[in-house]
């Protein structure tokens, strides 16, 4: 079943390249992937810690190279997210003027890379699957992008390639840091063996991982590729990349850095706190200053990464669970916003706020959906983002808390809370400028009927997990319980 989820999109991509009817095949594959992921997600044994549905295929024993897959609550959450967004992204793909088959193949390959990375238990494949998405991203932005697509495509490719190779060195150093008799590329064995790594040896490895993963997640100051790439990418590509693929870096920190390098995580937490505050406050202010809808959304997705980093930095059960939840919730909400953004781009000559206005009368459904997406992104109660952010905030605040003094975690939390206000400012202003006020545009149509289904799917997902966050939390916590002895 798990194998099916990983390889279905890849097979579909190949079949489409060979000339199968693109849209039908892609939709079918995405739907099947979602069904299978949902089946596994709701069928997982909640009580059991550790990985389930493990399958292993030895490849090169001298290199410790095995194709091992398996899932736990954390990876399943991410796989479900990937499947949902893949379906929405494929569905949202409008008319493609050239190389239609290649477009769908690229989308499927990005999703396959993300799912493969989340399901891999071998570091080599964990890394390799993520990189699989690099060429499709380059092609998607380069061929079908809009605006400054050439610069954006180069930037994203070179940033991500460099970040990935830095990450690769970090992973190799981690692998080399454990004694040779217990050395392994298997995440489970490595986690047990990582106890042997001294704090002094952990430190440089953690920095490399933070640098590598951080670049992939657009941690300040390695974020400049993200807004431009998302602003230029075609809507389905932006949905998949910002919603799913970017979460790989955070997933890696949660899966590898946190359990295997606990001392270094504590040692470098101050640095991470400063950087994530820059993500929240500085990028937040930059987002307010944006004058275009697509750039605003691109920057907002960079900003929200700060909260997830806060959850990771707090390195406790509550914070990490919140981070996992927010990865899911943010993926859904940003995908919804990019989808609407893409619809607007198809209909309008410009996405400058000055040129927009009054669209709510012409496109009531789009306005409604965008509003819900904006509310979710801001973190209004009732959406999954709210539940996640509040867990992160409490988790971070609790870290080293005493009743006499505020320490760095408490101050950071307080400052980070202002980010909620900042995001409310830019989201609501953008909402007003785009959808209300005097209309300047000619007659345009609302989102077509078939496209309302994925919109409804995304909104329903966000609200379902907003009202019942427990369904996710209970799946994720066994993983984190094994990390933190609380």
């Amino acid at each position, binding site marked *: 079943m798990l194998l099916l989820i990983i390889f279905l999109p890849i097979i579909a991509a190949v079949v489409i390249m060979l000339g199968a009817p693109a849209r039908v095949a892609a939709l079918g594959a995405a739907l099947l992937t979602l069904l299978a992921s949902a089946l596994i997600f709701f069928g997982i044994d909640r009580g059991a810690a550790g990985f389930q549905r493990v399958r292993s295929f030895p*490849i*090169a024993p*001298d*290199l410790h*190279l095995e*194709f091992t897959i398996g899932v736990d609550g954390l990876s399943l959450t991410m796989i479900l997210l990937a499947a949902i967004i893949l379906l929405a992204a494929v569905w949202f793909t409008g008319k493609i003027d050239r*190389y239609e088959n290649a477009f769908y193949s690229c989308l499927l390959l990005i999703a396959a890379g993300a799912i493969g990375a989340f399901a891999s238990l071998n570091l*080599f494949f964990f*890394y*390799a*699957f993520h*990189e*699989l998405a*690099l*060429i499709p991203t*380059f*092609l998607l932005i*380069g*061929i079908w992008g809009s605006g400054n697509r*050439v610069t954006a*495509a*180069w930037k994203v*490719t*070179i940033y991500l*390639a*460099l970040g990935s*190779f*830095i990450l*690769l*060195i970090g992973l*190799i*150093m981690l*692998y*080399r840091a454990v004694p040779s008799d217990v050395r392994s590329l298997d995440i489970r064995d490595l986690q047990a063996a990582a106890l042997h790594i001294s704090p002094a040896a952990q430190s440089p490895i953690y920095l490399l991982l933070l640098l590598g993963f951080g670049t992939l997640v657009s941690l300040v100051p390695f974020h400049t590729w993200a807004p431009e790439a998302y602003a230029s990418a075609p809507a389905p590509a932006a949905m998949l990349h910002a919603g799913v693929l970017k979460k790989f870096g955070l997933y890696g920190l949660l899966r590898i850095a946190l359990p295997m390098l606990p001392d270094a995580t504590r040692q470098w937490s101050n640095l991470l706190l400063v950087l994530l505050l820059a993500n929240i406050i500085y990028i937040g202010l930059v987002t307010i200053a944006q004058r275009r809808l697509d750039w605003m959304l691109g920057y907002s997705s960079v900003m929200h990464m700060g909260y997830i980093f806060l959850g990771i930095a707090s390195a406790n059960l509550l914070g990490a669970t919140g981070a996992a939840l927010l990865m899911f919730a943010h993926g859904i909400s940003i995908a919804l916003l990019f989808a609407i953004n893409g619809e607007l781009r198809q209909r309008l000559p410009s996405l400058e706020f000055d040129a927009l206005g009054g669209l709510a009368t012409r496109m009531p459904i789009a306005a409604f959906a965008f509003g819900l997406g904006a509310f979710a992104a801001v973190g209004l109660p009732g959406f999954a983002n709210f539940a996640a952010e509040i867990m992160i905030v409490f988790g971070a605040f609790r870290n080293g808390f005493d009743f006499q003094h505020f320490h760095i975690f408490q101050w950071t939390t307080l400052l980070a809370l202002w980010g909620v206000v900042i995001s409310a400012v830019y989201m609501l202003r953008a909402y007003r400028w785009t959808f209300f006020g005097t209309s300047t545009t000619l007659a345009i149509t609302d989102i077509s009927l078939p496209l309302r289904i994925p919109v409804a799917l995304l909104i329903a997902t966000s609200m379902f997990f907003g009202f019942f966050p427990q369904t996710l939390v209970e799946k994720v916590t066994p993983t984190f319980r094994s990390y933190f002895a609380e």
Partner: protein
Amino acid sequence: MIAAPYLEVAAVVLGVALLLIESFSARLDRRILAYAALVGLAAIFVATFFVTPASTFAQAPLWNFYSADPLALLFKRIALITTAFVVLMMIDFAPSLRAGIEGATPHAGLGEFFSLPLFTCAGLMWMASAIDFLMIFVSLELVTISFYVLVSFTRRNPLTLEAGVKYLVLSALSTGFLVYGITWIFGATGEMNLQKIAAALSRPDLEKTAALFGSVLVLVALGFKIAAVPFHIWVADVYEGAPTPVTAYLSVGSKAAGFVVLLRVLEPFLILPQMRVLLVVIAALTLIYGNLAALPQTNVKRLLAYSSIAHAGYLLIAVVSFSGRAVAFYLVAYLFMTLLSFAVLVLVGQKAGDQLKDFGGLSQRSPFLAFAMLIAMASLAGVPFTAGFLGKFLVFDAAVAAHQFTLVIIGVITVGAGFYYYFKVVRAMYWDMPASGETIPISLLTRIAMITMMAAIVVLGVYPQPVLEALKR
């Protein structure tokens, strides 16, 4: 079961036989010679799997010069595969050849063009087995002299003439360095055999300075072969001017043999600490220069020339870290991805040109060729699930294990540069509009060869076991 030296004998006999047939049958379609060469090479390739272990012959004096260890056998196979693909490319290249040489018959020169690679191949195979400086020198000369002819084969083309002269002069110079270095080493240690030199070097009473001086001179000569900076000056011009199949041969065959000799020669000398420092410096320079100089290239042939310098840098990281496994696997990966890109270049270059703009919109004109080039470029850049990535993975793994962190840092940064110039080709093929609407015809044999190379790149990218096993036995 056969003895390893017969493999080279077979290659030479095949080459001589083809030349004789060529000279005695004027009317023969020369392509038949090429097909015969392919069949012969395939037969020799199969024979490499049935070689008896060297130990049974250990008494014969030949084995002081010659080694048939797994490393040698693997590199013999590399030489054979390379030669076969090069001959295949030469068949495709034959029409352009006619424009480059004068002759009475339409077939003039083709026979030699198809048979010379066999002699080169024999030389490369001997190099793989050479464990004595005498043998290294003789086999290296066989390779170099056959390349003198091949590089300047299309002699009407002024660019080719320039390339031929440059290669001749600089090659001769490097040979001089080699012989002089060998003399110094022989003078210091009294030995020509590498194992005996190693034993001599570990004697405490030995005058090490003279041996070190000699080994540096040898390193210069080998640096020329593998195109390491600062011995790379000839590369770009020679690669650009030589007939494209010969360029491919130079950049793969010559380099692979150079590296196996380097591995063998360095083994005794790496106990001298100065040698390691020198190699680190050369590797760093090669990485930086190769990658940076490739960035602004607009001619695909020149781009591949600089990329071959860059890859020599990654290979040198593995050499410094002394990981024969990484060197061997990287070279196998390099072989497939480089030959594949040259195979596409031969076809596109004849129809349109070697410039980057001639690749514009290739994905619309010839989707198959564009896809093949995409795979080759992805592998050269180091995208996972290709052999090129696994090669880089092994190289960096070896470097981290050997604590060569300076080289690791430089390596990672230059990989970023690599992504830029390899993806420039991808960009031209997939983003840009086609320069002309002509499709490029591909012969069935070439198509099969390309599919084989693509399959090899992808399969070795996830399943390196065949190469690793070949190194162990």
